[in-house]
């Protein structure tokens, strides 16, 4: 019950914010005054109505994971986020090996096996991408300067990165 109500509340707030943003859409002579706003406003209204329905008629709660699992999921998200920004300065092999190892460990906690899986996946995919699919430019490895590493990492820090 509670989760659907919270979800409904979040979508309601989002919908209202969306409607507010839609009224602020810039228009000009070519588009006419209201046409660019019409459809976003409709979407926002439908979403708001449905959110209200959800708040008043919620479904039973799903089985939420336990606190530890939440921690695990958070770690996975952070690992993937760092992986995303490190692809540019470090290239494919090193970030993939590290990220795949950590994710593998999270699914089945066995450190040795996870590291082997990570390294194997990284090298295997490198070979497939480079020599079978001819996408060598995507998976090239790079040796970064500290400045570039910091540049990439700072993307993830609000108000510091770009």
């Amino acid at each position, binding site marked *: 019950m509670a989760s659907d109500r919270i979800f409904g509340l979040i979508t309601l707030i989002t919908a209202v914010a969306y409607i507010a943003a839609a009224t602020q859409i810039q228009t000009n002579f070519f588009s006419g005054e209201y046409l660019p706003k019409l459809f976003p406003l409709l979407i926002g209204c439908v979403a708001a109505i449905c959110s209200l329905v959800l708040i008043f008629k919620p479904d039973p709660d*799903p089985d939420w994971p336990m606190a530890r699992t939440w921690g695990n999921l958070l770690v996975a998200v952070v690992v993937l986020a760092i992986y995303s920004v490190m692809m540019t300065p470090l290239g494919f092999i090193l970030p993939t090996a590290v990220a795949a190892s950590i994710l593998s460990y999270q699914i089945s906690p066995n450190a040795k096996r996870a590291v082997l899986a990570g390294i194997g996946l990284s090298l295997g995919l490198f070979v497939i991408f480079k020599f079978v699919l001819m996408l060598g430019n995507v998976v090239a490895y790079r040796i970064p300067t500290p400045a570039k590493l910091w540049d990439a990492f700072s993307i993830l820090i609000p108000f510091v990165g770009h």
Partner: protein
Amino acid sequence: METLANLALGFSVALSPYTLMLAVIGCFIGTIIGALPGLGPSNGVAILIPISFALGLDATAALVLMTAVYYGAMYGGRISSILLNIPGDEPALMTTLDGYPMAKRGEAGNALVLSGAASFVGAFLATIGLILLAPVLARVAFLFGPAEYFALYLLAFCTLGGMASNNQAKSAIAACIGLGIAMIGVDSTSGLPRLTGGNLHLYDGVDFLVAIVGLFAIAELFFFIESHGKGSSIGVVLDKVKIPWTYIRQTIPTMLRASGVGFVAGVLPGAGASLGSFLAYMTEKSIAGEKGGFGTGVPKGVAAPEAGNNAAAGGALVPMLTLGVPGSGTTAVLLALLMTLNITPGPTLFRDNPDVVWGLIASLLIANVVLLIMNVPMVKIFVKILSVPAWILLPGVTMVSTTGIFALTGSYFDLLMLIGFGVLGYFLRKLDVPTVPVILGILLGGNMEDALRRAMTLSDGDPSYLFSSPIAIGLWIAAIAGFVAPMFLRGILKKPQAVSD
């Protein structure tokens, strides 16, 4: 006659050695993808689109490859249903009901071959139906103006929400999330950014491939982390594989009926393969009656949902190709593929790009034959692949998906959005909110808005224009009925639960 000439054109496109090779590769990869638990057809095609795009394949080659993967995944879904009692994707759920009991009785090989044959019959008949029906519908589609298109898109969202979800409000919210995301970016008529929050990365809008891969593949990773990869153990052992001719002969009427039912279900916009296999199974169950023994591992119970499911997969291509409105989650992903290749589905596709359409149809027929040939002798290989443990599979899938997206756009911002969509997908699925309407919204949002805008421009802002033609009114009524009816039919259309050990 015209149809035969068109087919000849299609085969001339699709039968070159190169495309044949792509079809075989696609079928092989597709079957593996379908067989692996947690990787359904939508998922698999979604992950492969960025890669095939980065490879620089031309439109026909990419289409042949991806449709082969699509059909292959539909075939492969049954392997894990029968052997592990885990449906590889939602439509395969019905196959577990009789397939798994059959496998437990030691008839795993028979069940696999029989379901392969049923898949072939269903897919083959559906492709024939597609050949006959699509050009007719394409001619009707020329009568569609902006008002009709707007109503048609609405119909797709309503029926999809009605059928796919247990709660109409949730599916409507899902559609709104997708449509809302589709609005982000530079407006095509004014040239001014909309709803970007000033972020330059969002001026191009949100790439639907990022959303699809995130919602399907990355969300799956989170689910596996939550469950620690449980439920991916090997269930039943497969020994000898022979062709069970008697079973196949017995179930021919079942397959034909199920194909018909499935095809019709597939053609309805938004209904899709899950409904096809469900209706086919239920029809056969009621024809067989109490004595039929459905649910205890009868051959008919394996043949019916598989034929229905594959027929629906073919049927779903009809509205997708002729109207640009996909009939299921997977066809939505195929629509994404077409849009990536800069092909706009719709009635003009049949007139302007006959080589693409008929090449696609011919490659469907080819893929079907290849799959039948491949599936009987090679089923053991696919079963071996099923035993890949989750702790290798899921990190691998994640890395392939991120690399695919990175190859496509080369931007860290898209990768971060990919993770964002993964998190969104996790929460939506936890809350029982369907994710397919989100995808459909992102895909169709632009077109739907265009239709509305043109209607408003033509009528000088008069909303009654939207209900001005009989076709439009019919579509509105169907849309409302499709949205409301499942609320009352929920008791009758209750899905049977998977058998438990």
